[in-house]
């Protein structure tokens, strides 16, 4: 293998050099020095690609609903947002009465299937900024009253953007939806027997909270903890 062949090989993948390439590198000081510099730049490429996911996600606003689209001008984006908001309000008022308990139960149960990434059992909490973004002024949560909050996003449920949290219960992850605009007059049972999950939508002041966890989860104590922890924003 000559210098040109060796450099062609190492420039394509500095991490993998075959036997002939390794032999050339041992025998040619110039190519060995070149390889060292190239591998240093390769480490730089690797570090650049492996960005800090948590930090980038904090800035995405991904959990706050409709996303920015770079191709729209600001004017069009505002006009489009206003139109979408108007249509959404009309749809909500026309088709999604918050007093329809069956529809609310179905929407909450359906939502459980939407975010499989949230089902993980973990001891890692989301950071404060992520939680605040998910709450987006809807409510405050006293974390001293809850176990680990492992997931927090703002999600569209029954025509409203609501905070979707996951706390780690004794039997596994538990989904909480803070339904600030949904009034229920009595607890509504939630039941997903195929998934081994059960829970309820419980009234809380002017809104309600959906709690859905494993069959074995002690819902009674969890209800009290959640009721103590959540305070609606005025």
């Amino acid at each position, binding site marked *: 293998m000559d210098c040109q062949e060796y450099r062609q090989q190492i*420039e*394509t993948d500095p991490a993998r050099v075959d036997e002939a390439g390794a032999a050339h590198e041992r025998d040619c000081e110039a190519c060995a020095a070149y390889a060292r510099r190239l591998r240093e730049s390769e480490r730089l490429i690797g570090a650049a690609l492996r960005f800090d996911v948590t930090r*980038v996600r904090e*800035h995405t606003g991904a959990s706050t609903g409709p996303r920015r689209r770079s191709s729209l001008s600001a004017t069009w984006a505002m006009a489009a947002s206003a139109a979408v908001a108007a249509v959404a309000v009309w749809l909500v008022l026309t088709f999604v009465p918050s007093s329809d308990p069956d529809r609310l139960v179905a929407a909450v149960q359906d939502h459980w299937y939407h*975010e499989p990434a949230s089902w993980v059992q973990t001891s890692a909490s989301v950071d404060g900024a992520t939680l605040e973004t998910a709450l987006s002024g809807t409510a405050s949560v006293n974390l001293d009253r809850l176990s680990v909050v492992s997931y927090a996003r703002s999600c569209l449920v029954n025509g409203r953007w609501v905070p979707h949290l996951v706390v780690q219960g004794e039997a596994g992850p538990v989904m909480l939806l803070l339904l600030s605009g949904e009034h229920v007059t009595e607890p509504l049972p939630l039941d997903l027997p195929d*998934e081994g999950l059960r829970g309820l939508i419980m009234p809380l002041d002017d809104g309600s909270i959906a709690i859905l966890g494993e069959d074995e989860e002690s819902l009674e104590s969890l209800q009290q903890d959640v009721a103590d922890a959540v305070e609606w924003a005025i």
Partner: protein
Amino acid sequence: MSEASASDAAKLRFERLVAPWRDDLYRYAVWLCRDPSLADDVVQEAMLRAFRSLGSLKDEAVVKAWLLTIVRREHARVYERKRLDTRDIDELSAADAALIASSEDTDIEDMRKAIFELDDEYREPLVLQVLMGLSTAEIAEALELKQGAVLTRLHRARKKLVDRVRPELGFAKD
């Protein structure tokens, strides 16, 4: 096995096989579309599809390639639906800026900018090789290219990056 325990088994399998790849799949999606917010959508949808079709994955050794295919398809679907324009580095959002500047090291920041500006045809094989650890043969299969074309693209991608960030290195010509 009862339906409930089958469901538990599916969830456990998902957590074991898929969850460990979540961060890297998000990174891959970000580099694919150069939009951290959009990448979040792509990965969420991809995760849902992966969960639904996990039963079809017979050989667990190929889970990474399988997930990458799902993310690529979901990304293509999103672009088809939205007909999104290509990104310009002058139109950085806060998330884009956070992506580029999420390091104390200015060399890494410069390299990230350079990768951000690479054409798709060079950026994707590089990401698959360096970030996801695919061989050139696997990249060729994933991108439906000949292996020679992959080698050329990888070589050119590195040349563009090194010429911009480390010009003193004197990368060989094509």
